[in-house]
């Protein structure tokens, strides 16, 4: 693999506004830090190779290598990536009374996995005010306090780095697609460290079309509503085309997505993945039913934990309607094509040799299929 160091990361990702703020390079060392949604380098680091570069989901992402490692096949053009099955789901009645984004599938699974020891800690995204903040959760009950989506990018993976530092070795992670990709890269031990063991126990990916830039979103929303009164934000699936902001006085503010789109960072327009393809299971909102989720089961481990959670009465699953699946594939395929085409046009895909850094590498056949 073609791994360089922090200077290349700074030059090719942060300075070019390709950083998704995922947090993978944050708190690995004293140099990369995240503050209010923005990743910065505090001091120069001179190393020619480093974990910051190796884990960044914006540099030298070798999709064939990662697919081979986790799914034993080269990367293909399926809009939803590799999976075993797709169902609909929701948290069981055990969890009634808690605030979740949709069906609460994510929280229910993390709760279950933590309680049963499939994972020894969960890396989630809570919030302070409206700022999303990474959290390491050791107690199942605390999973519930992190429910609901925060629609601005969060450096969640910095908490993975801290959890590893603290000695956790079966970490459960709830991640957006870029974070899932980075996690897959970390687990592949890219720098071939001798005493490396995979520290991750479960990756639950969430669907994502884009995450807003916190520094742009905060003043935007503050000018419309008192930030301290916000209880939840939601973007109901199409065709609604609005962001809904619920406040403590019970009212609901509707903001047309049109107004919000220019708060989406450029970085998201390069993201090919809508459904967190490199995770054990992926969860999204089920179109047409705000109380349920779409659940994609991708790996053996994902299947085992979901089955167990269903059997033990934590999770309720049902069949996925064909029409929903079609819409999902269309949306995911659309995102994939647009992003890859853009990256390809800008000379960021499959660059030969070591000199020119690529954002993404994948076999030419799949590349052609996707951008055709």
């Amino acid at each position: 693999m073609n791994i360089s160091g922090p200077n290349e990361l700074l030059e090719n990702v942060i300075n070019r506004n390709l950083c998704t703020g995922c947090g993978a390079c944050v708190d690995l060392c004293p140099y990369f830090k995240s503050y209010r949604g923005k990743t910065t380098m505090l001091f120069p680091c001179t190393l020619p190779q480093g974990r910051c570069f190796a884990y960044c989901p914006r540099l030298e992402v070798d999709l064939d290598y990662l697919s081979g490692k986790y799914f034993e096949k080269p990367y293909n053009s399926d809009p939803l990536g590799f999976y075993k099955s797709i169902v609909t789901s929701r948290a069981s009645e055990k969890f009634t009374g808690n605030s979740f984004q949709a069906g609460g599938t994510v929280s229910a699974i993390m709760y279950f996995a933590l309680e049963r020891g499939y994972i020894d800690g969960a890396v989630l995204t809570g919030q302070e005010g409206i700022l999303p903040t990474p959290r390491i959760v050791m107690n199942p009950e605390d999973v519930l306090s992190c429910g609901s989506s925060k629609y601005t990018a969060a450096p969640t993976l910095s908490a993975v780095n801290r959890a590893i530092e603290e000695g956790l070795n079966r970490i459960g992670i709830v991640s957006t697609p870029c974070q899932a990709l980075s996690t897959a890269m970390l687990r592949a031990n890219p720098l071939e460290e001798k005493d490396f063991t995979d520290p991750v126990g479960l990756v639950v990916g969430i669907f994502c079309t884009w995450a807003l830039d916190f520094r742009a979103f905060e003043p935007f929303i503050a000018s419309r509503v008192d930030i301290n009164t916000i209880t939840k934000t939601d973007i109901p699936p199409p065709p609604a085309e609005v962001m809904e902001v619920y406040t403590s006085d019970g009212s609901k503010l509707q903001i047309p997505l049109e107004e919000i789109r220019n708060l989406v960072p450029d970085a998201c327009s390069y993201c090919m993945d809508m459904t967190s393809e490199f995770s054990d299971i992926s969860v999204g909102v089920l179109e047409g039913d705000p109380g349920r989720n779409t659940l994609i089961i991708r790996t053996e481990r994902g299947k085992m934990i979901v089955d167990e959670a269903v059997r033990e009465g934590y999770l309720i699953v049902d069949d996925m309607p064909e029409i929903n699946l079609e819409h999902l594939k269309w949306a995911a395929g659309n995102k994939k094509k647009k992003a890859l085409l853009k990256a390809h046009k800008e000379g960021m895909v499959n660059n030969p040799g070591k000199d020119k850094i690529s954002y993404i590498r994948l076999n030419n056949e799949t590349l052609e299929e996707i951008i055709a």
Partner: protein
Amino acid sequence: MSYLTDNQNNDYLLMGNEAIARGALEGGVNVASGYPGTPSSEIIEALSSVAKERNLYVEWSINEKVALEVAASASFAGLRTMCVMKQNGVNVASDFLLHLASSGTRGGMVLVACDDPGALSSVNEGESRPFARLVEIPLLEPGDFQEAKDITKWAFELSEEIRNIVMIRSVTRMSHASGNVRYERLPDTNAKADFRFDGPLSDPETGPVISMVVGISELQHVPQQEKIKKAAEIFEDCPFNTYEGPEKPELLIITSSACTLYSREAISLLNVKDRVGILKLATTWPLPPRLIKKYLSVTDRILVVEEVLPILEENIKILAAEMAHEIGPKTFYGKNAGNIPSVGELNPDIVVSALSTILDVRVESVSESFVKEAAALIETGIPVRGLTMCPGCPHRASLWSIHNALEMDGRKGFVCGDIGCYVAGLWPGGFNTVKTLHSMGSGSGIAGGFGKLRQFGMDQPVLSICGDSTFFHAAMPALANAIHHKSPFTMIILDNRGAAMTGFQPHPGTPVNAMGEAVPSLDIAEICRAMGATVEIRNPFDIEETQQTLHHLIEHQEGTKVLILSQACALSPERKDNPKYRMKVDEEICIGGNCGCNRLCTRIFGCPGLLWDEEKGVSKINDIMCTGCGVCADICPAGAIKREEVAEYVG
């Protein structure tokens, strides 16, 4: 009894500044004031050490202008008085100085300005000499250590004779080098202060003392110019203006101050005693015209040797032009002709090279091979060390937090700097945080101005830093101005509890004065609050808390805020030889140069108390340098630097 107050005619080895202090004592000084600044500080320190014994009043004033005002009051009351400052201080005092020169003085009053050619310990090598001409007062420049004493003593008499303040100018090499000084007797110490003001306005001895009578120059400016003419007349016979050399030299060097020593040495190195004469002037403004004429007449070639600007050179050229019909045309060498540089300190080598071109003589003062060997030795022997702060310096911790907060904030915030040890903030040793640097207090004035540029689209966070002494010296007006004009910026006061850079002189925030007496100390935080600023106080050694506070202060840019980062200087009496922690690096844990740290402590943080062990690939503590502040333990990403409390620590 101090060696400074020995009342016998003994010889003492004195530093130039001590010689000036002794001269003041022999001249019967009663009151002395000043503001600390290298190379001048030892004069007030010497006088304060004998204040009780000699019945003096000595003070470190809040700034140079106030110092001059305090000293002037004593003169108005008929006492002998002296005011001391470094060259930049004369700029600060110059407003009052102009008025004082106009009102005139009563008791002998001497202003000592210590210049710093080459800016060895200053932000610039600005000159104080032009002020003498600008405000029309006499300027004296001692040429050796004996003269430093003798001229100071004489200056009081001169001041009383012409009824105006007299300025003495020293330079670093005069103030800080030492030489033999023969003492004279000290006068009695029973002066009485009596300020008389009942006489008519026109009476300089009994009337009110005022600087300006609107439109009536006869009352002020005319008599002031009479005084300077009188001084020139006195200077014609001044025993401190001397000539040495042949009767008709090929070349005449005209020089003064420490340059006299360099010129003498150059002549002797080149062995041209028979060809070159030296006119050494102690009275460099106003120049005594008849004396100058006499010596300009002995030769046609003149070299003026002086440091920095060609002030003496130009004044002599004016006289030479006026006298041209009597003395004939002259060839001048010096700065304008390019023989002597107009920046930096001089030394004998520079004068040697000027002389050897002018006289066409060759000399090898040092052999070329020696120069090469010396250069090679320097490269191998002396470790390279960037400009940085002392081990355990609170400013390092403060600048670290400021740097990190600004970088993480990411809106290109910046710091307007000020004069103090924290100028290191300009360089990597201070994490390149400081982006403007001018005179004392100016950082806050400039920051206040930047704060008002929001109107023109400037939305970066603006910070200023200043020291505790600087706060009182010149930053208070800047803060008041910013608050009054609602300028959004954060002023960070790096309170290290004394004027640390110049040697811990007291200031209004400290509980003792120059003479060691207990005095009320002013609370900086309360002053800022009373002015209307939001004030936070933190210990900069608590990096986490300081950084959080900074984030909080700069995030919302409204109003003028003050953050006081309070921690004693590492060299202060309370912290010196009193480490709080014994530090140790756990070699097993240290990540060293590997990914995850890459030598943060030695490569970036840069406290000289930390060393990099190349062989082992780990950092270690330099036990001799480390002051035990413990800060590095908090920046180490691995927790490899360990603190252990020192039992003997006095908190």
